[in-house]
């Protein structure tokens, strides 16, 4: 083979097939291309620090010492799901390996007992429906009962449209469980991760005592495309990113994944209950 005898299309394609996929990745935020091994062990872009969307299990492994799942088998009754929605749910269960868009349970973080919730966008974009609303309400109720702090990682496209008004009502339902927990004088820390939008932003994502966010996480109420199409404007690139929310006063701090556990442990230490301290 020489430059006078270039490889034909089939030979090129055969050679391409020998290169494994996903060796090079592109950051969805800064668009830099990097070798896969450059991704930090916390799944962050080596150039801008954007955190890739994680599965709930990966998130738990990063933050929790241990995790005892609650209400993992809670599902909708067949009576309330029509054919198309049930099929979509079945596909989501099969592909995400989860039964719902949020995992809830009891955990320890740096030795401190917490009630922990982790949302997962791999299950129907982390949308909020009856099951997720019930699981989160029970999580806050359990935490209130046992006088535990709540740590919640949000990641959601918002209300689950297939469940209509019931989905909207979950915003009020979870908010009430948050309010009970707050009235008991207990700590609620939220970590906003990419993306946190719609009905989740307009409820429990914005009701914590301390609101943390991951670098460059998209956090907003109305989706960018809806604003563009309705108002025919082109918002600045970063108008719903964590850094903008910090500047506008809606986020307490932006914390990289590598620092999150230490940060949370400090907050748990500062807010620990006196009787626990005497044990």
């Amino acid at each position, binding site marked *: 083979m020489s430059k006078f005898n270039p490889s034909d299309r089939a030979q090129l394609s055969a050679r391409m097939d020998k290169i494994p996929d996903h060796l090079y990745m592109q950051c969805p935020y800064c668009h830099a291309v990097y070798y896969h091994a450059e991704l930090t062990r916390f799944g962050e872009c080596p150039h801008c620090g954007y955190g890739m969307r994680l599965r709930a299990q990966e998130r738990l492994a990063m933050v929790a010492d241990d995790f005892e799942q609650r209400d993992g088998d809670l599902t909708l009754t067949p009576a*309330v799901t029509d054919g198309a929605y049930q099929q979509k749910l079945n596909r989501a269960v099969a592909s995400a390996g989860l039964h719902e868009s949020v995992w809830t349970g009891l955990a320890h973080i740096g030795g401190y007992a917490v009630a922990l919730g982790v949302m997962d966008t791999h299950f129907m974009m982390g949308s909020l429906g009856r099951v997720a609303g*019930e699981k989160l309400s029970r999580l806050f109720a359990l935490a209130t009962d046992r006088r535990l702090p709540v740590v919640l990682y949000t990641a959601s496209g918002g209300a689950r449209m297939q469940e209509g008004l019931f989905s909207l009502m979950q*915003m009020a339902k979870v908010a*009430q469980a948050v309010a009970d927990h707050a009235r008991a004088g207990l700590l609620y820390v939220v970590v906003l991760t990419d993306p946190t939008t719609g009905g989740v932003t307009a409820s429990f994502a*914005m009701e914590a005592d301390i609101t943390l966010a991951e670098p460059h996480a998209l956090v907003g109420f*109305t989706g960018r495309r809806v604003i563009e199409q309705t108002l025919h*404007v082109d918002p600045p690139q970063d*108008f719903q990113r964590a850094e903008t929310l910090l500047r*506008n*006063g809606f986020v307490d701090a932006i914390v990289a994944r590598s620092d999150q556990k230490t940060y949370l442990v400090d907050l748990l230490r500062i807010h620990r209950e006196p009787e626990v301290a005497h044990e």
Partner: protein
Amino acid sequence: MNSAYDVVRQARSQDKVSTPWLIAQLLTHFHELHGDQAQGDDPAIIGGVGLLVGQPVTVIATNKGQTLAESQACHFGCATPAGYRKAIRLMQQAAKFGRPVLNLINTPGAFLGVDAEYQGQGQAIAQCIMTGVSLPVPMVSVIVGEAGSGGALALACGDRTWMFAQSTYSVLSPEGYASILWRDGQRAAEAAEHMRLTPPEILADGIVDRVIPEVTDVPGAQQLGAELAATFTTLGELPTQQLLAARHERYRNFGVDGLQE
């Protein structure tokens, strides 16, 4: 027979009574209180104090505006963060003075815009919901026309929600639903049939407590005023703990019928 989309059209109709007119009929000695005391005064939310059949009440209403200029200033009834923060302020003021809160709702949803995002639209609605569910005084919401999405829910988190006969309550507009689920905004009428957004369907689903006759004239408004006053009296007789416990049950149970372990 009316189709679901007919109800949507009636809920959006220009001929429907306006919330300022309703306030004028329901309350005497009404005084509007302006502003969120942080950023500005959103005309899409009217708030104030007055007497309802002699009882002091706080009223909070979304406003679509009567003239084109008014409607534009009100974003056709879509409240901004300043509007929800005004609502929160007035709810807290009502709690301080132990008077009930009446919310009148006719909004397609919260205002969407770049500035609204910068000012924390999601945070403002979230805090309004949280204020509502834990408010230590009776709160009744009446859906007069459209009640769309979180922007409507923010004002419907009290002890009772009633709907006019020609009104709708939905997670988003039928146009938005069709465009999200079927990628075709033209199929709004079909979406409306699907969404269970008409008063009888929502009542059957246990999300609202009553469907009330459409108010079109002064006697109708007086009848509504009398029923609201009676409801506030009944709710007001409950000790605060009991009021909050009942409200707790109300929200705790939304949607549990459809769940299994």
